[in-house]
């Protein structure tokens, strides 16, 4: 059973355009929602993350929108650049407060930004 569903599987965006990736989750106990960026041959790197007490978080060109009632969250990349071409993963976890938290990842979106 996949607990975090991510779409689309692949995305092609023109340079300067907006890239939007969506995720939906099932477990209402999730309370931490990060996005990771992975380039070929590298490990995933934390891009931006949100807690459910806010509906939006912005860092530079990257914005997370969070809808708790719909159990959905999305990543918006404004002014997309060719250097943003990578695979993006949404994830979610509970926080047991003891320090260890296991991320459940979506299946990833391969973003290609064309000049």
């Amino acid at each position, binding site marked *: 059973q996949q607990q975090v569903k991510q779409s689309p599987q692949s995305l092609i965006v023109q340079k300067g355009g907006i890239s939007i990736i969506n995720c939906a989750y099932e477990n209402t106990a999730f309370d*931490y929602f*990060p996005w*990771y960026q*992975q380039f070929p*041959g*590298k*490990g*995933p*790197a*934390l891009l931006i*993350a*949100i*807690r459910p007490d806010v509906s939006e*978080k912005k860092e530079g060109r990257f914005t997370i929108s969070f809808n708790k009632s719909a159990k959905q969250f999305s990543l918006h990349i404004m002014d997309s650049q060719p250097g943003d071409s990578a*695979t993006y*993963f949404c994830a979610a976890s509970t*926080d047991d*407060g*003891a*320090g*260890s*938290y*296991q*991320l*459940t*990842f979506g*299946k*990833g979106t391969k973003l290609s930004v064309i000049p």
Partner: protein
Amino acid sequence: DTAVSQTPKYLVTQMGNDKSIKCEQNLGHDTMYWYKQDSKKFLKIMFSYNNKELIINETVPNRFSPKSPDKAHLNLHINSLELGDSAVYFCASSHPLGRSSNYGYTFGSGTRLTVV
């Protein structure tokens, strides 16, 4: 300095062999993890470990075992390798989240395991 380092980067081995992948972090994190990324890029938790507790994903075969000599190291030992074990294995580490959303995992660059 690399924050989370894994060795080797590539590992090609025959079915039935036993192999280990090493992971070290110099971030002072309390918790370390192993994730498996399959050919479709799906990332799946295998283990999480801190000084207090080892949590094993129930779907991980018992041929896989984590070994932690100290807080900065979490090695992955695999017995009797099978063709289906071919994947990229990532080590990661983390601080406790607290109430912040600014922390997350720091991943290593991965070990590509090919079983022939």
